[in-house]
C-alpha cells in the first residue's frame, strides 16, 4: 500500500496548461493546512516572494527563484571565502545561469531544502508538507528529470552529490508524490497519459490523477429521449440541456480513458460555476479531495 498523500513530505502538482494545476495545488495545500499540517506551497514563477510568507494559519507560500536559491546555496553550503567569492561574482552568476539545466537544479534544490525535517536555512522551522505548483507537463517532466541528468554529467563533486540526493528523494514514494491534473477533454487526457509514460521512463509514478472541472452529468437516457423530441422547437432551455448532456457524455468517455489507466488513483473535482474562484469556492474543492 502506498503511503497516503498527506503523509508524504513533498507533492509535485503538474498537468497540461490551463487545467487548473495551481487551483488543485492550492486546494491540496488548504486541505493539508486545515488538517493541522504546517504546509508550504511553492511555485516556480519567480514573480512572487522569494521568502516564505504565512498566508493563513499553517499555510505558507514561496516563489522559488533560481538566482536567489543559488546565493542561498553558496552562502550556506559552500560558505567561507569560496562562497563569498562566488556569491559576489557576476561572472559566476552569468556562468551558472547559462549552464543548461542549472536553473532547474537550483530550483529543485530549494524545494528539496524546504521539504527536509532538518533544514539548512538557519532558524527555519520544518514543514510537514511542501506542495509544488510545478510547470506544465512537458516542462514539469523535464524539471523532475534534471537531477538525474545532472548527477550523470557532473559525476563527481558536491553538485553531483546534491543532484543524486535530490534524484533519490524524488523517486522515494514514501517521501515524494507526483499528482497529475487533467480536465475531461481529449487533449488534456492525452497529455496526462503521455506524462505518465514520460515519468515511468524516469522510474517515477503518478500517485494520483485529479480530473478537474467535471460538468454535472444529470440526465438519464429516457430523459434525453424526452428532451430530444422537444428539440428544434422554441424551447431554448431544452437545447441548452441537450448541449450539457452532450458535453457530459464526451467527458464520460475521456474520464474512462484515464480510469482504464489509473483506476483507483483517479479522482474527480466538479466544475464550479461561480463567477470567481474565491476562498469559499477553493474550500469546497479542498473538501472534495479524497486523500
Amino acid at each position, binding site marked *: 500500500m502506498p503511503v497516503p498523500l498527506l503523509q508524504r513530505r513533498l507533492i509535485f502538482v503538474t498537468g497540461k496548461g490551463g487545467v487548473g494545476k495551481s487551483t488543485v495545488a492550492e486546494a491540496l495545500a488548504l486541505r493539508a493546512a486545515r488538517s493541522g499540517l504546517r504546509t508550504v506551497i511553492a511555485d516556480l514563477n519567480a514573480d512572487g516572494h522569494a521568502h516564505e510568507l504565512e498566508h493563513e494559519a499553517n499555510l505558507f507560500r514561496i516563489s522559488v527563484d533560481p538566482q536567489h536559491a543559488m546565493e542561498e546555496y553558496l552562502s550556506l553550503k559552500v560558505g567561507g571565502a569560496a562562497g563569498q567569492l562566488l556569491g559576489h561574482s557576476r561572472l559566476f552568476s552569468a*556562468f551558472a545561469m547559462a549552464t*543548461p539545466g542549472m536553473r532547474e537544479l537550483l530550483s529543485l534544490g530549494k524545494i528539496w531544502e524546504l521539504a527536509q525535517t532538518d533544514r539548512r536555512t538557519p532558524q527555519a522551522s520544518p514543514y510537514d508538507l511542501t506542495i509544488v505548483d510545478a510547470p506544465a507537463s512537458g516542462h514539469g517532466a523535464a524539471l523532475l528529470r534534471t537531477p538525474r541528468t545532472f548527477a550523470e554529467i557532473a559525476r563527481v563533486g558536491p553538485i553531483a552529490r546534491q543532484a543524486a540526493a535530490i534524484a533519490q528523494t524524488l523517486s522515494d514514494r514514501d517521501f515524494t508524490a507526483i499528482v497529475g491534473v487533467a480536465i475531461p477533454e481529449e487533449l488534456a487526457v492525452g497529455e496526462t497519459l503521455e506524462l505518465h509514460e514520460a515519468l515511468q521512463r524516469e522510474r517515477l509514478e503518478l500517485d494520483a490523477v485529479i480530473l478537474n472541472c467535471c460538468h*454535472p452529468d444529470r440526465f438519464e437516457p429516457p430523459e434525453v429521449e424526452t*428532451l430530444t423530441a*422537444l428539440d428544434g422547437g422554441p424551447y431554448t432551455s431544452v437545447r441548452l440541456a441537450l448541449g*450539457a448532456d452532450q458535453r457530459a457524455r464526451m467527458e464520460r468517455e475521456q474520464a474512462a480513458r484515464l480510469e482504464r489507466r489509473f483506476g483507483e488513483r483517479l479522482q474527480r473535482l466538479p466544475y464550479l460555476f461561480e463567477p470567481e474562484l474565491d476562498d469559499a469556492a477553493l474550500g469546497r474543492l479542498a473538501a472534495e479531495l479524497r486523500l
Partner: protein
Amino acid sequence: MSIAELLEGKRVVICAGAGGVGKTTTAAAIALGMAARGSKVAVVTIDPARRLASALGLGELDNQPRLIDPARLAPLELEGELWAMMLDPKRTFDELIDAVAPSAQRAQEIKGNRIYRQLSTAVAGSQEFTAIAKLHELTSTGEYDLVVLDTPPSRNALDFLDAPARLESFLEGGALKAFLRPTGMGMRVLALSTAPVLAALRRVTGIDLVADLSTFFTLLGTMTESFDRRARQVDRLLHSPTSGFLVISSPQPRPTEEAIWFRGTLVQGGLPFTGAVVNRVHPAVEPGPPAPLPPALGAKVAQAAHEYAALVARDATSIERLQRALEGAPLLLVPELSGDVHDLSGLLQIREQLFR
C-alpha cells in the same frame, strides 16, 4: 472583423498566450484560412503534445514543413498551399550548428559535447530558442508567403522574446570572454582551472563539468559572429511591421490576466501587437417559453439553463476586462463549439469563425 484583414501584409504571425487557451488550434486555423485564400503558408507548432499533428492527420510531423494533402481538407478548397511542421528542438539545434560551424569537423565536435547534448534536449527553454532559429530559417528563404508560429505557454514567453537578445548579451558578456583568452585551447582550460573564481567553481561543480563546459563555450565561441548576426536578423524580423503578434486567450480570469500582461510586454518591447483572439466564448441565448416537461426533468433543465447563463455572464466579465485593457486594439471572439475540438472538422469550424 475577419482575421484576414488583421493579417493583411503580414509575413509572420506569432500566436502567444496562456496554456490551454487553444493557441495551437488557432495557429493551425489561421494557417488553414490564409492558405484557402491563396497564400503559401507554413505553420510551426512547438507544442510537445503533438496536437497539430493529430488535427492534420499527420502521425509524426518532422522538423521540416510538410505539404498537407489538400484532399484531406475537403470541403474546404485551398487556393494556396498549407505546410505544417512540429518543432524538434534537438534537430533544430543540430541543423543550426551545421549551418554556423566553420567546418564539418567542428560541427561534429560540438554535437558530441555532453553539455551540448544536454542543452539541445532536456532543458526547458530550448523550445523558445529553437523556435526562433526555425522562424529565422523559414523566413530567410522567402519560400513562404506567411509563417505562422505557435509558442510555448506565456510564462515562458518572455524567454521566447528575449532569446535573440539574451544570446547576444551572453556571447558578448563576461561568461564567454573568460573562456576565450587569446591563447590555445589547452591554455584556456588551464587558465580556467587556475583563475580563482573558476577554481572555486570547480570545487562546487566537480571538475568534469567544468572541463565539458569550457570545451562547450570554446567551441561555441568560434561561432560568435555567426550567432550574433542571426540574433540581430531575428530581432529585426520580430520588430518588423510585416510581423504580427496575436494574443490568444479564453474568457476566464486567469488567461485574461495573462493576455493583458502579454499584450503589455509586447507593446513595451516595441513589438507589433496585432490583436487578441478569445476562444470558447459562450454566446448569450434568449430565454424561450417553459418547455412542457414533468416537474423533476423540468427542474434539471432549468438548472442546466441556469448554469449556462452563469457561464455567459462570466465570459462577458472577462471579455470586458480584456477589451478595456486593449485600448481599441482588435478583439476577435470565437464561440464555444459543441464537442471537443481536436479533429479536422473542429479545425475547419474554427477557421470559419475566424475568417467570417
